[in-house]
């Protein structure tokens, strides 16, 4: 039973890490007309 709980914990953590990667992907999108100063 504890083994399943540990496995579930690992799966949840990696699912969150993948969601975090998705969030980073969204944040990377440069807004149109973003400044590129001289």
């Amino acid at each position, binding site marked *: 039973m*504890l083994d399943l709980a*540990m496995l579930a914990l690992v799966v949840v953590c990696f699912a969150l*890490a993948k969601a975090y990667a998705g969030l980073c992907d969204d944040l990377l999108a440069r807004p149109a007309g973003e400044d590129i100063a*001289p």
Partner: protein
Amino acid sequence: MTSIGWLQIALLAAIVGLLTRPLGGYLARVYAGEHTLLRPLIGSVEAALYRLAGVTPEAEQTWYQYTVSFLIFHALGIVSLYALLRLQSVLPLNPQDLTGVAPDLALNTAVSFVTNTSWQSYGGETTLSYASQMAGITVQSFLSAASGIAVAIALIRGFARRRSPTIGNFWVDLTRGTLYVLLPICVIAALLLVAQGVPQTLAPSAEVTTPEGGPQTIARGPVATQEAIKLLSGDGGGFFNTNSAHPFENPTPLTNLAELVLIFALGAALTNCFGRMVGSERQGWILLTVMAILFALGVGGLYSSETGGNPALASAWRAGPTKSAQPPPAGNMEGKEVRFGIAGSALFAEVSTASSDGAVNSMHDSFLPLSGGILLANMMVDEVIVGAPGSGLFGMLLFCIVAVFLAGLMVGRTPEYVGKKIGSPEIKMTILALICVPAATLGLSAVASVVEPGLAGLGNAGPHGYSEILYAYTSATATNGSALAGLSANSPFYNLTLALAMFVGRFLVIVPVLAIAGSLAVQPVVPRSQGTLPTERVLYVCFLLGVIVIVGALTYLPALALGPIIESLQIAGGVFY
């Protein structure tokens, strides 16, 4: 302090400095897929592995695909190592008939070695079978190092490429790092260690009779092969509980020096690899110079502090029956191997905490509080002082981005670094990567300092006890793995929270690092102009040093004040914990 002590330090610096350029060039050729001396020997093995895994080496990945591959690979690594540790009692190569590892400890250990941390809440020789050590710990040491280097190479490609939607192929980088870099060096290192007396055997522990006639069990096993990658990988998890203080892990002065070189070699060489790949070796030397200055400050402080000895003992010595006007001559030898002495122990501790390796040849808990503070500070600056293979370089590059961003703010220009504009997406990713480590370190330390299961593990009260907790979470998030061993960390609370800290310290940093790589790779190279900050000059070295120290101090100084700093002040007044 002695001249021999300083000579040891200088010798290490010289050897690492001499290795940096040839090894850096070799790394650059390996990851570019160019011809190397080993390609005729290993090329067919590499190709066979790609065929077996269904990998097309020419097919490159976007940063997101690279990241997902990285995460899947590590998830599988944790699950497989966990299963191995749990099932070791029914698997072969278990001559001591050790039982399966408890679930919480198995999870902690699996996360620890897959994340290149090597935090050990167990004693290796009394907990792990040979199968677990060889097929579990050693294998993950190779793979975690190879994947760390792969991430650094991907980030370098981000800086080096122009208008490229891809940053390489994770599976190819992982395979090349393992086959062409880690394995060959480890074969040579393991043979050297065996020649110096490190055991390499599958025979069970030796049962002997001591000169007094009593029985004694002497643990041994396949030590040399694990020792080599333990050091080269920046992993640091020892075969034995006492790690490199054990004579079977580190038997001679030559092995001690070789171990230090192995810890630093790849991390230093990657700076040169960076310089070559972005088209200016000088950029790499600048990074290595910053690392060297921080290292020199740390090792000088440690050596000086430990040589000075415990001020309370010095007072007692002067007030004692001898009425000597001189302080005790030995300095602080508590917790140190006599054969390594103060210089050898201070040097190893500095290299170990600066590099994120975490191997030890002395008891860090017995260092003076100020020395403990230096060890903590080494880890708190995000393992940028050479660091582990890969993570040290990308940690330093994150600070480079912050530095050019701050410089850009001062003069009102969009910052550039090695020809790439650093815009808001890169800054957002950098902040994400830099903030998750202190958030996890300080947050979990605060929780452990007030809840019953956290306090139950303490070996000391007061600021020293707090330092033990802070050190544990700092070590875990910095993927270092060393410990102030006064903390009894093999409890469900510490095993799970430290596993979480290691997870955050590895994956929540690497994901935004790869995002930066992807964001930079698609950009064109910006030509230098009069407004470009020259990042290959001495002024930039000072600026980058300032940024690292100020960011580190602003983040961690209050926490350090509550632990080692206050303890250092109190110990002078004779107050101990």
